[in-house]
């Protein structure tokens, strides 16, 4: 007997809704877990996933993907790519693995929630594959860096980061808890798969795979490509869910979820990807600036996805685009200045040639960020390295958990965005971060930033060494300049550009 084609049986096979006999519909699918927002189940049944795959097809394709990535890794194990790579590239790898690998496990839990509580059978079906995708991503992104752990202890943070109170790990956990660990199935579909994955990760991974190939790291390039193809499939869970919400009078609710998720995703990408592209990537390997990347993919592509679905652009869209000019430069300065608090070694990325590139891509960089780097460079040139080391904590945003920072020097625009709520003074990096808090203050009010914990006496002794111990950063793990300050040598011949 001939087998049926997939399209001949798929719709019937995944019609898995039923009428419960022993419990009520509400008990089986409580709204708090489904996030169906009162839209009845029959309205959800029109959900039509754009990407259809059967289980045998999924297994065959995933097996091929794994075989491909692991074969490239095995073939290149003796190639000394790692040893020969620029230290800036190694820093990108360390930051990536620590920030992402265990986040994938969290995403697996979120996909599992959609498997169980998704109101549409199609959503549950796609999320089953999505759950297995994320499990694979967590495991492969732990296995690959494990090879490097004996060579460099910072790679141990691929697994360790999420289990610590290191500040960037707190920022990642706070964001991911908000976007998908502590959300309903529908909210996860919108916030994780549509906003975070379609908007950012899917495109980010495309760029990262190209950068890895450019840097000669074909092992990482094949790993990332293998993940990206999964992302581009399961990221499509959110679109049809948004269509159901919008066509059933829930546009305002859907819009709010999208607006919160994009704003939170932007902060994480800004601090992780911005410095990677514009500072850690060696100059000769840079194809476009972070700003150009954001304008092409987020403004050019993602903006269209929002409009096509019938959503509006987030109210803060222009403010976010304005941040493309400066926010990641400020984050880079913070990462480098507080480098002992990182599990990777940030590259300064401010040689005379790099500064010329930054000025070209971001006119005015020398008069703003350049002036602050002048003082740092001058201290390193003149034997005052202690003045380039942190002695106090930066104030951390009560939403992003990232230091509140902006433009120094001539364009100085640093500002606190405070909020007095129930007698506690909260601090935010921008109007956007504060707006998120105001949407659901009870959800966020009790969280203590690293600075709050310091002031509450939870960090002992109350100094930098106490803070590093609190963050579980042992000697040999804490970050330092990626190039051992070799970049300063160039300035012995020529003064910093902004000082000319």
């Amino acid at each position, binding site marked *: 007997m001939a087998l049926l084609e997939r399209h001949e049986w798929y719709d019937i096979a995944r019609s898995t809704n039923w009428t419960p006999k022993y419990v009520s519909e509400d008990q089986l699918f409580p709204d708090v877990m489904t996030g169906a927002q009162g839209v009845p189940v029959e309205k959800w049944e029109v959900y039509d996933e754009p990407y259809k795959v059967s289980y045998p097809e999924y297994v065959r394709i995933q097996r091929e993907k794994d075989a491909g990535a692991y074969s490239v890794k095995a073939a290149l194990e003796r190639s000394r790519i790692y040893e020969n790579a620029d230290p800036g590239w190694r820093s990108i790898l360390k930051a990536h693995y620590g920030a992402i690998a265990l986040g994938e496990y969290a995403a697996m839990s979120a996909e599992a929630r959609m498997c169980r509580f998704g109101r549409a059978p199609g959503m549950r079906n796609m999320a089953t594959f999505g759950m297995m995708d994320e499990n694979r991503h967590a495991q492969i992104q732990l296995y690959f860096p494990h090879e490097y752990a004996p060579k460099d202890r910072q790679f141990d943070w691929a697994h360790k980061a999420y289990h610590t109170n290191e500040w960037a790990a707190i920022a990642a956990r706070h964001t991911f808890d908000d976007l998908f660990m502590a959300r309903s199935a529908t909210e996860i579909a919108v916030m994780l798969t549509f906003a975070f994955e379609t908007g950012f990760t899917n495109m980010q991974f495309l760029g990262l795979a190209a950068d890895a190939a450019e840097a000669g790291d074909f092992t990482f390039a094949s790993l990332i490509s293998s993940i990206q193809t999964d992302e581009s499939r399961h990221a499509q869970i959110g679109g049809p869910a948004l269509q159901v919400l919008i066509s059933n009078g829930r546009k305002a609710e859907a819009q709010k979820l999208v607006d919160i998720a994009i704003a939170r995703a932007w902060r994480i990408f800004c601090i992780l990807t911005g410095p990677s592209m514009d500072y850690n990537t060696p100059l000769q390997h840079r194809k476009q600036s972070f700003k150009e990347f954001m304008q092409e993919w987020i403004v050019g592509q993602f903006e269209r996805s929002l409009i096509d679905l019938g959503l509006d652009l987030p109210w803060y869209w222009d403010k976010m685009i304005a941040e493309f000019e400066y926010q990641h430069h400020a984050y880079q300065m913070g990462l480098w200045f507080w480098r002992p608090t990182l599990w990777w070694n940030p590259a300064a990325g401010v040689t005379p040639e790099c500064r010329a590139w930054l000025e070209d891509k971001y006119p005015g960089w020398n008069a703003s960020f350049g002036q*602050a780097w002048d003082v*740092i460079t001058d201290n390193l040139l003149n034997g005052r390295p202690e*003045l380039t080391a942190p*002695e106090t904590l*930066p*104030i951390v945003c009560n939403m992003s958990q990232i230091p*509140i*920072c902006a433009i120094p020097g001539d364009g100085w625009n640093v500002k*606190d965005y405070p909020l007095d709520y129930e007698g506690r003074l909260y601090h935010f990096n921008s109007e956007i971060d504060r707006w998120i808090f105001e949407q659901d203050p009870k959800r966020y009010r009790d969280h203590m930033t690293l600075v709050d914990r310091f002031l509450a006496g939870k960090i002992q002794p109350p100094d930098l060494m106490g803070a590093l111990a609190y963050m579980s950063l042992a000697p040999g793990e804490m970050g330092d300049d990626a190039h051992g300050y070799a970049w300063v040598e160039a300035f012995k011949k020529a003064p910093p550009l902004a000082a000319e």
Partner: protein
Amino acid sequence: MALFPIISNFERDFVLLLVPVDTENTMDEVTAAAAHHSVGRRVAPQPNKVIRVRRQGAKDFFPRDKRLGETDIRPMEALEFIFADA
């Protein structure tokens, strides 16, 4: 005497900083504490200027000899430290 944390938003620096001061400190002493973490680290000194402090968004500076405990500044309030003519 009581330890009193404030937030320093120092002119021409890029980040808000935690600065522990004391209620007995004068505004000049508070300013010196804030300057320690910014000037000569990421902000170039301006020897011909003095540094004055004001509330975020305010026009007027606090009097230089006023003690912190005599003001209505709240713990963890963001203060602006500005280079001004001597």
